[in-house]
Protein backbone atom coordinates (compact mmCIF):
# COMPACT_ATOMS: atom_id res chain seq x y z
CA UNK A 1 0.00 0.00 0.00
CA UNK A 2 2.70 2.42 0.88
CA UNK A 3 4.38 1.65 -2.40
CA UNK A 4 1.33 2.59 -4.36
CA UNK A 5 0.93 5.70 -2.31
CA UNK A 6 4.50 6.80 -2.86
CA UNK A 7 4.05 6.60 -6.58
CA UNK A 8 2.16 9.86 -6.39
CA UNK A 9 5.26 11.79 -5.45
CA UNK A 10 5.72 14.39 -8.19
CA UNK A 11 8.97 15.59 -9.65
CA UNK A 12 10.74 17.94 -7.25
CA UNK A 13 11.70 20.30 -10.03
CA UNK A 14 8.10 20.86 -10.99
CA UNK A 15 6.97 21.96 -7.56
CA UNK A 16 6.51 25.70 -7.36
CA UNK A 17 6.98 25.79 -11.09
CA UNK A 18 5.37 29.19 -11.45
CA UNK A 19 7.65 30.65 -8.83
CA UNK A 20 10.63 29.31 -10.62
CA UNK A 21 9.48 30.61 -13.96
CA UNK A 22 8.78 34.00 -12.46
CA UNK A 23 12.24 34.08 -10.95
CA UNK A 24 14.00 33.48 -14.24
CA UNK A 25 14.89 37.14 -14.74
CA UNK A 26 16.39 37.23 -11.27
CA UNK A 27 18.27 33.99 -11.74
CA UNK A 28 19.59 35.10 -15.09
CA UNK A 29 20.65 38.45 -13.73
CA UNK A 30 22.32 36.89 -10.75
CA UNK A 31 24.11 34.20 -12.71
CA UNK A 32 24.81 35.72 -16.08
CA UNK A 33 25.32 39.37 -15.24
CA UNK A 34 26.63 39.38 -11.72
CA UNK A 35 28.44 36.08 -11.46
CA UNK A 36 29.23 35.73 -15.14
CA UNK A 37 30.22 39.33 -15.61
CA UNK A 38 32.36 39.26 -12.51
CA UNK A 39 34.15 36.08 -13.44
CA UNK A 40 34.65 37.40 -16.94
CA UNK A 41 36.16 40.57 -15.53
CA UNK A 42 38.42 38.73 -13.14
CA UNK A 43 39.45 36.35 -15.90
CA UNK A 44 40.43 39.09 -18.31
CA UNK A 45 42.27 41.00 -15.61
CA UNK A 46 45.05 38.49 -16.13
CA UNK A 47 45.42 39.40 -19.78
CA UNK A 48 46.93 42.42 -21.42
CA UNK A 49 43.77 43.26 -23.31
CA UNK A 50 43.86 46.73 -24.73
CA UNK A 51 40.90 48.17 -26.55
CA UNK A 52 39.28 44.79 -27.04
CA UNK A 53 39.40 41.76 -24.79
CA UNK A 54 42.17 39.43 -25.86
CA UNK A 55 43.27 36.11 -24.48
CA UNK A 56 46.94 36.85 -23.96
CA UNK A 57 47.78 36.12 -20.38
CA UNK A 58 50.30 38.12 -18.45
CA UNK A 59 49.84 36.75 -14.96
CA UNK A 60 49.76 39.34 -12.26
CA UNK A 61 51.41 42.06 -14.32
CA UNK A 62 48.36 44.23 -14.37
CA UNK A 63 48.10 44.05 -10.60
CA UNK A 64 51.73 44.92 -10.11
CA UNK A 65 51.38 47.90 -12.34
CA UNK A 66 48.14 48.87 -10.60
CA UNK A 67 49.67 49.00 -7.17
CA UNK A 68 52.72 50.80 -8.49
CA UNK A 69 50.55 53.54 -9.98
CA UNK A 70 50.46 56.60 -7.72
CA UNK A 71 47.06 57.47 -9.07
CA UNK A 72 45.57 54.18 -7.94
CA UNK A 73 47.09 54.55 -4.52
CA UNK A 74 45.75 58.08 -4.29
CA UNK A 75 42.37 56.84 -5.42
CA UNK A 76 42.34 54.18 -2.73
CA UNK A 77 43.42 56.68 -0.09
CA UNK A 78 40.75 59.09 -1.20
CA UNK A 79 38.13 56.38 -1.11
CA UNK A 80 39.18 55.43 2.38
CA UNK A 81 39.05 59.01 3.64
CA UNK A 82 35.86 59.81 1.79
CA UNK A 83 34.30 56.51 2.74
CA UNK A 84 35.03 56.68 6.43
CA UNK A 85 34.12 60.32 6.75
CA UNK A 86 30.97 60.10 4.73
CA UNK A 87 29.89 57.02 6.65
CA UNK A 88 30.49 58.73 9.97
CA UNK A 89 29.07 62.08 9.04
CA UNK A 90 26.02 60.83 7.24
CA UNK A 91 25.20 58.53 10.14
CA UNK A 92 25.79 61.23 12.73
CA UNK A 93 24.06 64.02 10.87
CA UNK A 94 21.29 61.75 9.64
CA UNK A 95 20.67 60.43 13.11
CA UNK A 96 20.77 63.83 14.75
CA UNK A 97 18.32 65.24 12.27
CA UNK A 98 16.08 62.23 12.75
CA UNK A 99 16.29 62.60 16.52
CA UNK A 100 15.34 66.26 16.24
CA UNK A 101 12.52 65.42 13.87
CA UNK A 102 11.27 62.85 16.33
CA UNK A 103 10.59 65.44 19.04
CA UNK A 104 6.99 65.88 17.91
CA UNK A 105 7.92 69.12 16.18
CA UNK A 106 5.72 71.36 14.15
CA UNK A 107 6.29 71.58 10.38
CA UNK A 108 7.75 68.11 10.37
CA UNK A 109 6.67 67.57 6.79
CA UNK A 110 8.30 70.77 5.62
CA UNK A 111 11.58 70.00 7.30
CA UNK A 112 11.59 66.47 6.05
CA UNK A 113 10.98 67.57 2.48
CA UNK A 114 13.80 70.09 2.74
CA UNK A 115 16.23 67.49 4.02
CA UNK A 116 15.18 64.90 1.52
CA UNK A 117 14.89 66.83 -1.73
CA UNK A 118 18.59 66.72 -2.65
CA UNK A 119 18.25 62.97 -2.82
CA UNK A 120 16.00 63.45 -5.82
CA UNK A 121 18.79 65.16 -7.71
CA UNK A 122 21.42 63.33 -9.67
CA UNK A 123 25.05 63.41 -8.73
CA UNK A 124 25.69 65.31 -11.92
CA UNK A 125 23.37 68.07 -10.76
CA UNK A 126 24.73 67.93 -7.22
CA UNK A 127 28.27 68.16 -8.46
CA UNK A 128 27.53 71.12 -10.68
CA UNK A 129 25.72 73.04 -8.00
CA UNK A 130 28.42 72.58 -5.44
CA UNK A 131 31.15 73.28 -7.91
CA UNK A 132 29.41 76.56 -8.37
CA UNK A 133 28.82 77.29 -4.70
CA UNK A 134 32.40 76.39 -3.81
CA UNK A 135 33.95 78.18 -6.75
CA UNK A 136 36.51 80.58 -5.26
CA UNK A 137 35.83 83.26 -7.82
CA UNK A 138 32.06 83.36 -7.46
CA UNK A 139 31.03 81.22 -4.56
CA UNK A 140 31.25 81.39 -0.82
CA UNK A 141 34.86 82.56 -0.72
CA UNK A 142 34.20 85.46 -3.07
CA UNK A 143 31.03 86.44 -1.25
CA UNK A 144 32.66 86.44 2.16
CA UNK A 145 35.61 88.36 0.83
CA UNK A 146 33.34 90.93 -0.74
CA UNK A 147 31.80 91.46 2.67
CA UNK A 148 35.13 92.62 4.00
CA UNK A 149 37.03 89.55 5.20
CA UNK A 150 39.47 89.74 2.35
CA UNK A 151 41.78 87.13 3.75
CA UNK A 152 39.01 84.57 4.02
CA UNK A 153 39.98 81.39 2.24
CA UNK A 154 37.59 78.61 1.51
CA UNK A 155 38.61 76.98 -1.71
CA UNK A 156 38.39 73.23 -1.33
CA UNK A 157 37.91 72.30 -4.95
CA UNK A 158 41.19 73.80 -6.10
CA UNK A 159 43.28 72.89 -3.09
CA UNK A 160 44.66 69.38 -3.52
CA UNK A 161 44.97 68.69 0.19
CA UNK A 162 41.32 69.28 1.00
CA UNK A 163 39.55 68.71 -2.28
CA UNK A 164 38.10 65.45 -1.03
CA UNK A 165 36.28 67.37 1.71
CA UNK A 166 34.75 69.58 -0.94
CA UNK A 167 33.35 66.45 -2.52
CA UNK A 168 32.26 65.21 0.88
CA UNK A 169 30.23 68.35 1.48
CA UNK A 170 28.28 67.76 -1.70
CA UNK A 171 27.87 64.05 -1.02
CA UNK A 172 26.51 64.69 2.45
CA UNK A 173 24.16 67.30 1.13
CA UNK A 174 22.79 64.81 -1.32
CA UNK A 175 22.67 61.73 0.86
CA UNK A 176 21.93 62.61 4.48
CA UNK A 177 18.25 63.14 3.77
CA UNK A 178 17.78 59.49 3.00
CA UNK A 179 19.77 58.48 6.04
CA UNK A 180 17.56 60.72 8.12
CA UNK A 181 14.51 59.06 6.65
CA UNK A 182 15.79 55.60 7.47
CA UNK A 183 16.74 56.65 10.97
CA UNK A 184 13.41 58.30 11.51
CA UNK A 185 11.65 55.15 10.48
CA UNK A 186 13.88 53.26 12.90
CA UNK A 187 13.21 55.64 15.75
CA UNK A 188 9.49 55.40 15.20
CA UNK A 189 9.82 51.67 15.53
CA UNK A 190 11.28 51.83 19.04
CA UNK A 191 8.93 50.61 21.72
CA UNK A 192 7.35 53.57 23.47
CA UNK A 193 7.78 51.79 26.79
CA UNK A 194 11.56 51.96 26.51
CA UNK A 195 11.35 55.73 26.57
CA UNK A 196 9.06 55.62 29.54
CA UNK A 197 11.29 53.20 31.39
CA UNK A 198 14.27 55.44 30.79
CA UNK A 199 12.40 58.48 32.04
CA UNK A 200 11.32 56.68 35.18
CA UNK A 201 14.90 55.61 35.66
CA UNK A 202 15.87 59.25 35.39
CA UNK A 203 18.15 58.76 32.41
CA UNK A 204 18.77 61.99 30.56
CA UNK A 205 17.63 62.20 26.97
CA UNK A 206 21.05 62.12 25.39
CA UNK A 207 22.12 59.11 27.38
CA UNK A 208 18.93 57.34 26.46
CA UNK A 209 19.74 57.93 22.82
CA UNK A 210 23.36 56.98 23.16
CA UNK A 211 23.17 53.93 25.37
CA UNK A 212 19.73 52.55 24.75
CA UNK A 213 18.12 53.70 21.54
CA UNK A 214 21.10 53.59 19.20
CA UNK A 215 22.09 50.07 20.21
CA UNK A 216 18.47 49.04 19.70
CA UNK A 217 18.52 50.41 16.18
CA UNK A 218 21.26 48.08 15.07
CA UNK A 219 19.27 46.63 12.15
CA UNK A 220 18.46 50.10 10.87
CA UNK A 221 22.07 51.09 11.14
CA UNK A 222 23.12 48.01 9.26
CA UNK A 223 20.67 48.65 6.46
CA UNK A 224 21.77 52.26 6.32
CA UNK A 225 25.43 51.41 6.35
CA UNK A 226 24.91 48.96 3.55
CA UNK A 227 23.11 51.55 1.48
CA UNK A 228 25.71 54.23 2.15
CA UNK A 229 28.61 51.86 1.66
CA UNK A 230 27.35 50.60 -1.67
CA UNK A 231 27.12 54.21 -2.79
CA UNK A 232 30.59 55.02 -1.52
CA UNK A 233 32.25 52.24 -3.45
CA UNK A 234 30.55 53.40 -6.61
CA UNK A 235 31.21 57.10 -6.23
CA UNK A 236 32.02 58.40 -9.67
CA UNK A 237 29.54 60.87 -11.16
CA UNK A 238 29.95 63.27 -8.30
CA UNK A 239 33.71 63.46 -8.66
CA UNK A 240 33.49 63.76 -12.41
CA UNK A 241 30.95 66.53 -12.22
CA UNK A 242 32.67 68.43 -9.44
CA UNK A 243 36.39 68.13 -10.06
CA UNK A 244 37.05 65.49 -12.73
CA UNK A 245 39.51 64.05 -10.28
CA UNK A 246 41.44 67.27 -9.99
CA UNK A 247 43.30 69.27 -9.14
CA UNK A 248 45.82 66.92 -10.63
CA UNK A 249 44.93 63.50 -9.34
CA UNK A 250 44.07 64.61 -5.85
CA UNK A 251 40.40 63.68 -5.95
CA UNK A 252 40.63 60.53 -7.99
CA UNK A 253 38.55 57.54 -6.91
CA UNK A 254 38.82 53.87 -7.86
CA UNK A 255 35.67 53.78 -9.97
CA UNK A 256 37.05 56.59 -12.05
CA UNK A 257 40.36 54.82 -12.42
CA UNK A 258 38.51 51.79 -13.73
CA UNK A 259 36.53 53.82 -16.18
CA UNK A 260 39.47 55.88 -17.38
CA UNK A 261 41.72 52.94 -17.94
CA UNK A 262 39.11 50.76 -19.53
CA UNK A 263 37.85 53.36 -21.93
CA UNK A 264 40.17 56.31 -22.17
CA UNK A 265 43.48 54.55 -21.90
CA UNK A 266 42.08 51.63 -23.85
CA UNK A 267 43.74 49.26 -21.47
CA UNK A 268 40.99 46.85 -20.52
CA UNK A 269 43.37 44.57 -18.65
CA UNK A 270 44.38 47.37 -16.32
CA UNK A 271 40.79 48.45 -15.88
CA UNK A 272 39.72 44.90 -15.12
CA UNK A 273 42.51 44.49 -12.60
CA UNK A 274 41.37 47.64 -10.86
CA UNK A 275 37.75 46.47 -10.88
CA UNK A 276 38.81 43.15 -9.50
CA UNK A 277 40.52 44.91 -6.63
CA UNK A 278 37.34 46.86 -6.01
CA UNK A 279 35.35 43.65 -6.07
CA UNK A 280 37.70 42.08 -3.59
CA UNK A 281 37.26 45.04 -1.26
CA UNK A 282 33.52 44.88 -1.62
CA UNK A 283 33.51 41.17 -1.02
CA UNK A 284 35.53 41.53 2.15
CA UNK A 285 32.98 43.98 3.49
CA UNK A 286 29.82 42.46 2.12
CA UNK A 287 30.07 38.73 2.14
CA UNK A 288 30.19 38.34 5.92
CA UNK A 289 27.30 40.73 6.25
CA UNK A 290 25.24 39.07 3.54
CA UNK A 291 25.89 35.73 5.12
CA UNK A 292 24.69 36.93 8.50
CA UNK A 293 21.64 38.66 7.09
CA UNK A 294 20.44 36.27 4.46
CA UNK A 295 22.30 33.01 4.79
CA UNK A 296 23.03 31.32 8.05
CA UNK A 297 19.61 29.74 8.37
CA UNK A 298 17.89 32.88 9.50
CA UNK A 299 14.38 32.72 8.26
CA UNK A 300 11.42 34.95 7.94
CA UNK A 301 11.15 38.37 9.49
Amino acid at each position, binding site marked *: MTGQARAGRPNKLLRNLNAKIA*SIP*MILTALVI*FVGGTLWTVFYSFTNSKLLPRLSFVGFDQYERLWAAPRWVTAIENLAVYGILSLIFSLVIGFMLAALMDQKIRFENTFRTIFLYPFALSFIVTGLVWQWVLNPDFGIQAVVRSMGWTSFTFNPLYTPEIVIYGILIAALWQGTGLVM*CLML*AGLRGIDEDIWKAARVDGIPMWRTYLFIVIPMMR*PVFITTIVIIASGIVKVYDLVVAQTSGGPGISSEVPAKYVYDYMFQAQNLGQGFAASTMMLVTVAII*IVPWAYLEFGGGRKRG
Partner: protein
Amino acid sequence: MADVGTLNTTSAGIDAVAPKLGEGPSGPRPRPAVSARNIMLYGTLTIAALYYLLPLYVMVVTSLKGMPEIRLGNIFSPPMEITFEPWVKAWAQACTGLNCDGLSRGFWNSVRITVPSVIISIAIASVNGYALANWRFRGSELFFSILIVGAFIPYQVMIYPIVIILREIGIYGTLTGLIVVHSIFGMPILTLLFRNYFVSLPEELFKAARVDGAGFWQIFLRIMLPMSLPIFVVAMILQVTGIWNDFLFGVVFTRPDTYPMTVQLNNIVNSVQGVKEYNVNMAATILTGLVPLIVYFVSGRLFVRGIAAGAVKG
Protein backbone atom coordinates in the same frame (compact mmCIF):
# COMPACT_ATOMS: atom_id res chain seq x y z
CA MET B 1 -16.69 51.16 53.55
CA ALA B 2 -14.59 53.83 55.08
CA ASP B 3 -13.35 55.39 51.90
CA VAL B 4 -16.65 55.66 50.16
CA GLY B 5 -16.06 59.38 50.23
CA THR B 6 -12.96 59.03 48.16
CA LEU B 7 -14.77 57.00 45.62
CA ASN B 8 -14.87 58.56 42.24
CA THR B 9 -17.69 61.00 42.61
CA THR B 10 -18.92 61.13 39.07
CA SER B 11 -19.24 57.41 38.75
CA ALA B 12 -22.96 57.17 38.97
CA GLY B 13 -23.98 60.70 39.63
CA ILE B 14 -24.34 60.35 43.38
CA ASP B 15 -23.07 62.85 45.91
CA ALA B 16 -21.12 65.14 43.64
CA VAL B 17 -19.21 66.77 46.47
CA ALA B 18 -16.03 67.72 44.68
CA PRO B 19 -13.13 67.63 47.11
CA LYS B 20 -11.12 70.83 47.21
CA LEU B 21 -7.87 70.92 45.37
CA GLY B 22 -4.83 71.15 47.55
CA GLU B 23 -2.19 73.81 47.42
CA GLY B 24 0.57 73.77 44.86
CA PRO B 25 0.91 72.89 41.24
CA SER B 26 -2.10 71.66 39.43
CA GLY B 27 -2.87 70.74 35.84
CA PRO B 28 -0.30 70.40 33.14
CA ARG B 29 3.31 71.34 33.66
CA PRO B 30 3.88 74.86 32.42
CA ARG B 31 5.72 74.83 29.14
CA PRO B 32 6.86 78.18 27.85
CA ALA B 33 6.53 78.48 24.09
CA VAL B 34 10.08 79.84 23.88
CA SER B 35 12.07 77.47 26.01
CA ALA B 36 15.76 76.85 25.71
CA ARG B 37 14.93 73.43 24.39
CA ASN B 38 12.73 74.78 21.63
CA ILE B 39 15.31 77.36 20.64
CA MET B 40 17.90 74.62 20.36
CA LEU B 41 15.52 72.32 18.52
CA TYR B 42 14.14 74.70 15.97
CA GLY B 43 17.41 76.60 15.75
CA THR B 44 19.33 73.52 14.75
CA LEU B 45 16.66 72.41 12.35
CA THR B 46 16.49 75.82 10.75
CA ILE B 47 20.24 76.04 10.31
CA ALA B 48 20.30 72.57 8.82
CA ALA B 49 17.43 73.51 6.55
CA LEU B 50 19.35 76.54 5.37
CA TYR B 51 22.31 74.36 4.46
CA TYR B 52 20.05 72.13 2.43
CA LEU B 53 18.20 74.97 0.80
CA LEU B 54 21.23 77.11 0.00
CA PRO B 55 22.21 75.36 -3.25
CA LEU B 56 18.64 75.36 -4.47
CA TYR B 57 18.42 79.03 -3.70
CA VAL B 58 21.64 79.72 -5.56
CA MET B 59 20.43 77.73 -8.53
CA VAL B 60 17.12 79.49 -8.74
CA VAL B 61 18.52 82.94 -8.16
CA THR B 62 21.32 82.49 -10.64
CA SER B 63 19.05 81.11 -13.28
CA LEU B 64 16.98 84.27 -13.09
CA LYS B 65 19.89 86.65 -13.50
CA GLY B 66 21.40 87.94 -16.70
CA MET B 67 25.06 87.26 -17.42
CA PRO B 68 26.21 90.85 -16.65
CA GLU B 69 24.73 90.60 -13.21
CA ILE B 70 26.38 87.26 -12.62
CA ARG B 71 29.75 88.73 -13.43
CA LEU B 72 29.25 91.18 -10.59
CA GLY B 73 29.93 88.21 -8.48
CA ASN B 74 27.60 87.67 -5.54
CA ILE B 75 25.86 84.36 -6.04
CA PHE B 76 23.63 84.90 -3.04
CA SER B 77 22.18 88.27 -3.91
CA PRO B 78 18.71 88.13 -5.38
CA PRO B 79 18.39 89.13 -9.01
CA MET B 80 18.04 92.85 -9.54
CA GLU B 81 16.25 92.15 -12.73
CA ILE B 82 14.45 88.90 -13.22
CA THR B 83 14.86 87.38 -16.63
CA PHE B 84 13.48 84.12 -17.87
CA GLU B 85 15.68 84.07 -20.88
CA PRO B 86 18.11 81.52 -19.42
CA TRP B 87 15.20 79.17 -18.91
CA VAL B 88 14.01 79.59 -22.44
CA LYS B 89 17.51 79.12 -23.68
CA ALA B 90 18.14 76.04 -21.56
CA TRP B 91 14.90 74.49 -22.63
CA ALA B 92 14.84 75.30 -26.28
CA GLN B 93 17.97 76.96 -27.60
CA ALA B 94 21.16 75.77 -25.99
CA CYS B 95 23.48 74.05 -28.40
CA THR B 96 25.45 70.86 -28.35
CA GLY B 97 27.39 70.61 -31.53
CA LEU B 98 24.93 71.46 -34.24
CA ASN B 99 21.78 70.71 -32.33
CA CYS B 100 20.38 73.83 -30.80
CA ASP B 101 17.15 72.66 -29.30
CA GLY B 102 18.24 72.70 -25.68
CA LEU B 103 16.90 70.21 -23.23
CA SER B 104 13.51 69.83 -24.79
CA ARG B 105 14.54 66.87 -26.89
CA GLY B 106 16.23 65.18 -23.96
CA PHE B 107 13.15 65.67 -21.85
CA TRP B 108 10.97 63.58 -24.10
CA ASN B 109 13.71 61.01 -24.50
CA SER B 110 13.96 60.77 -20.74
CA VAL B 111 10.23 60.27 -20.52
CA ARG B 112 10.38 57.58 -23.14
CA ILE B 113 13.19 55.87 -21.29
CA THR B 114 11.95 56.36 -17.74
CA VAL B 115 8.34 55.30 -18.05
CA PRO B 116 8.86 51.81 -19.47
CA SER B 117 12.02 51.23 -17.46
CA VAL B 118 10.32 52.10 -14.20
CA ILE B 119 7.31 49.96 -14.96
CA ILE B 120 9.25 46.96 -16.14
CA SER B 121 11.93 47.05 -13.47
CA ILE B 122 9.34 47.37 -10.72
CA ALA B 123 7.26 44.61 -12.23
CA ILE B 124 10.20 42.24 -12.33
CA ALA B 125 11.52 43.17 -8.90
CA SER B 126 8.15 42.93 -7.21
CA VAL B 127 7.60 39.45 -8.58
CA ASN B 128 11.10 38.49 -7.47
CA GLY B 129 10.51 39.86 -4.00
CA TYR B 130 7.22 38.03 -3.80
CA ALA B 131 8.72 34.75 -4.94
CA LEU B 132 11.57 35.14 -2.47
CA ALA B 133 9.29 35.94 0.42
CA ASN B 134 6.56 33.42 -0.14
CA TRP B 135 7.67 30.73 -2.57
CA ARG B 136 11.15 29.93 -1.55
CA PHE B 137 12.67 27.15 -3.56
CA ARG B 138 16.02 25.50 -3.45
CA GLY B 139 18.64 28.08 -4.27
CA SER B 140 16.39 31.09 -4.17
CA GLU B 141 18.20 32.57 -1.20
CA LEU B 142 21.50 32.01 -2.94
CA PHE B 143 20.39 33.92 -6.01
CA PHE B 144 19.15 36.64 -3.76
CA SER B 145 22.45 36.87 -1.92
CA ILE B 146 24.25 37.15 -5.23
CA LEU B 147 21.89 39.91 -6.21
CA ILE B 148 22.56 41.83 -3.02
CA VAL B 149 26.29 41.54 -3.38
CA GLY B 150 25.73 42.63 -6.95
CA ALA B 151 24.31 45.89 -5.67
CA PHE B 152 27.80 46.81 -4.58
CA ILE B 153 29.53 46.14 -7.84
CA PRO B 154 30.56 49.42 -9.43
CA TYR B 155 28.68 49.88 -12.67
CA GLN B 156 31.87 50.45 -14.58
CA VAL B 157 32.88 46.88 -13.91
CA MET B 158 29.74 45.56 -15.52
CA ILE B 159 29.49 47.81 -18.52
CA TYR B 160 31.80 45.84 -20.71
CA PRO B 161 30.26 42.41 -20.19
CA ILE B 162 26.82 43.91 -20.62
CA VAL B 163 27.77 45.57 -23.86
CA ILE B 164 28.91 42.20 -25.10
CA ILE B 165 25.77 40.42 -23.90
CA LEU B 166 23.45 42.99 -25.40
CA ARG B 167 25.39 42.86 -28.63
CA GLU B 168 25.00 39.12 -28.75
CA ILE B 169 21.27 39.36 -28.14
CA GLY B 170 21.11 42.10 -30.71
CA ILE B 171 19.47 44.79 -28.63
CA TYR B 172 22.45 47.00 -28.07
CA GLY B 173 21.65 50.66 -28.64
CA THR B 174 17.90 50.14 -28.62
CA LEU B 175 15.43 51.37 -26.07
CA THR B 176 14.81 47.73 -25.15
CA GLY B 177 18.46 47.34 -24.34
CA LEU B 178 18.45 50.34 -22.06
CA ILE B 179 15.32 49.11 -20.30
CA VAL B 180 17.01 45.78 -19.75
CA VAL B 181 20.03 47.52 -18.29
CA HIS B 182 17.95 49.62 -15.95
CA SER B 183 15.98 46.57 -14.86
CA ILE B 184 19.17 44.69 -14.15
CA PHE B 185 20.76 47.37 -12.05
CA GLY B 186 17.53 48.29 -10.31
CA MET B 187 16.90 44.68 -9.42
CA PRO B 188 19.06 44.21 -6.32
CA ILE B 189 17.83 47.05 -4.20
CA LEU B 190 14.22 46.82 -5.39
CA THR B 191 14.11 43.09 -4.85
CA LEU B 192 15.44 43.62 -1.35
CA LEU B 193 12.76 46.21 -0.65
CA PHE B 194 9.95 44.08 -2.01
CA ARG B 195 11.18 40.94 -0.33
CA ASN B 196 11.39 42.64 3.04
CA TYR B 197 7.99 44.13 2.56
CA PHE B 198 6.32 40.89 1.55
CA VAL B 199 8.05 39.08 4.39
CA SER B 200 6.58 41.59 6.78
CA LEU B 201 3.07 40.84 5.57
CA PRO B 202 1.49 38.08 7.63
CA GLU B 203 2.38 34.72 6.23
CA GLU B 204 -1.01 33.42 7.18
CA LEU B 205 -2.60 35.63 4.56
CA PHE B 206 -0.63 33.81 1.95
CA LYS B 207 -1.55 30.46 3.43
CA ALA B 208 -5.21 31.38 3.52
CA ALA B 209 -5.10 32.29 -0.13
CA ARG B 210 -3.46 29.00 -0.98
CA VAL B 211 -6.12 27.09 0.89
CA ASP B 212 -8.64 29.15 -1.05
CA GLY B 213 -7.08 27.72 -4.17
CA ALA B 214 -5.33 30.77 -5.54
CA GLY B 215 -2.12 30.11 -7.45
CA PHE B 216 1.16 31.97 -7.73
CA TRP B 217 -0.12 34.77 -9.95
CA GLN B 218 -3.56 35.00 -8.43
CA ILE B 219 -2.14 35.48 -4.96
CA PHE B 220 0.28 38.06 -6.25
CA LEU B 221 -2.18 40.04 -8.27
CA ARG B 222 -5.28 39.78 -6.13
CA ILE B 223 -3.97 39.56 -2.59
CA MET B 224 -0.46 40.97 -2.39
CA LEU B 225 -0.55 43.82 -4.88
CA PRO B 226 -3.52 45.62 -3.39
CA MET B 227 -1.74 45.62 -0.04
CA SER B 228 1.55 46.95 -1.29
CA LEU B 229 0.93 50.57 -2.14
CA PRO B 230 3.55 52.05 0.20
CA ILE B 231 6.35 49.92 -1.08
CA PHE B 232 5.36 50.48 -4.66
CA VAL B 233 5.53 54.19 -4.03
CA VAL B 234 9.02 53.84 -2.60
CA ALA B 235 10.12 51.70 -5.51
CA MET B 236 8.57 54.10 -7.94
CA ILE B 237 10.29 57.09 -6.40
CA LEU B 238 13.63 55.35 -6.27
CA GLN B 239 13.37 54.20 -9.85
CA VAL B 240 12.03 57.42 -11.28
CA THR B 241 14.82 59.40 -9.68
CA GLY B 242 17.44 56.77 -10.37
CA ILE B 243 16.58 56.29 -14.02
CA TRP B 244 15.83 59.91 -14.68
CA ASN B 245 19.12 60.92 -13.13
CA ASP B 246 21.15 58.21 -14.74
CA PHE B 247 23.98 59.42 -16.87
CA LEU B 248 26.32 56.53 -17.46
CA PHE B 249 23.87 54.08 -19.00
CA GLY B 250 22.10 56.82 -20.86
CA VAL B 251 25.28 57.77 -22.56
CA VAL B 252 26.68 54.31 -23.12
CA PHE B 253 23.57 52.44 -24.13
CA THR B 254 21.76 54.98 -26.28
CA ARG B 255 22.49 57.00 -29.34
CA PRO B 256 22.41 60.76 -29.73
CA ASP B 257 18.86 60.99 -30.99
CA THR B 258 17.66 59.19 -27.89
CA TYR B 259 19.96 60.81 -25.34
CA PRO B 260 18.21 61.38 -22.04
CA MET B 261 18.04 64.73 -20.38
CA THR B 262 21.06 64.23 -18.12
CA VAL B 263 23.31 63.59 -21.07
CA GLN B 264 21.88 66.63 -22.74
CA LEU B 265 22.50 68.57 -19.56
CA ASN B 266 26.07 67.41 -19.42
CA ASN B 267 26.51 68.39 -23.05
CA ILE B 268 25.08 71.81 -22.50
CA VAL B 269 27.06 72.45 -19.36
CA ASN B 270 30.28 71.18 -20.85
CA SER B 271 29.89 72.81 -24.22
CA VAL B 272 31.38 76.08 -23.23
CA GLN B 273 30.94 78.74 -25.81
CA GLY B 274 33.36 81.37 -24.67
CA VAL B 275 32.34 82.09 -21.12
CA LYS B 276 30.30 79.67 -19.10
CA GLU B 277 26.71 80.76 -19.12
CA TYR B 278 26.03 79.96 -15.53
CA ASN B 279 22.47 81.16 -15.63
CA VAL B 280 21.63 78.84 -18.50
CA ASN B 281 23.46 76.01 -16.81
CA MET B 282 21.52 76.54 -13.60
CA ALA B 283 18.23 76.73 -15.42
CA ALA B 284 19.12 73.55 -17.28
CA THR B 285 20.10 71.91 -14.03
CA ILE B 286 16.84 72.81 -12.36
CA LEU B 287 14.86 71.71 -15.38
CA THR B 288 16.62 68.36 -15.36
CA GLY B 289 15.97 67.82 -11.68
CA LEU B 290 12.40 69.00 -11.85
CA VAL B 291 10.68 65.71 -12.55
CA PRO B 292 12.20 63.76 -9.64
CA LEU B 293 11.75 66.77 -7.41
CA ILE B 294 8.08 66.95 -8.21
CA VAL B 295 7.76 63.23 -7.61
CA TYR B 296 9.32 63.74 -4.20
CA PHE B 297 7.28 66.70 -3.20
CA VAL B 298 4.08 64.94 -4.17
CA SER B 299 4.74 61.59 -2.55
CA GLY B 300 7.33 62.30 0.14
CA ARG B 301 5.07 61.27 2.96
CA LEU B 302 4.36 57.87 1.45
CA PHE B 303 8.07 57.52 0.88
CA VAL B 304 8.86 57.66 4.58
CA ARG B 305 6.06 55.25 5.34
CA GLY B 306 7.20 52.85 2.70
CA ILE B 307 10.81 53.07 3.83
CA ALA B 308 9.64 52.15 7.30
CA ALA B 309 7.77 49.20 5.89
CA GLY B 310 10.31 47.91 3.46
CA ALA B 311 13.80 48.95 4.29
CA VAL B 312 14.14 49.07 8.00
CA LYS B 313 12.83 45.67 8.80
CA GLY B 314 15.34 43.31 7.48
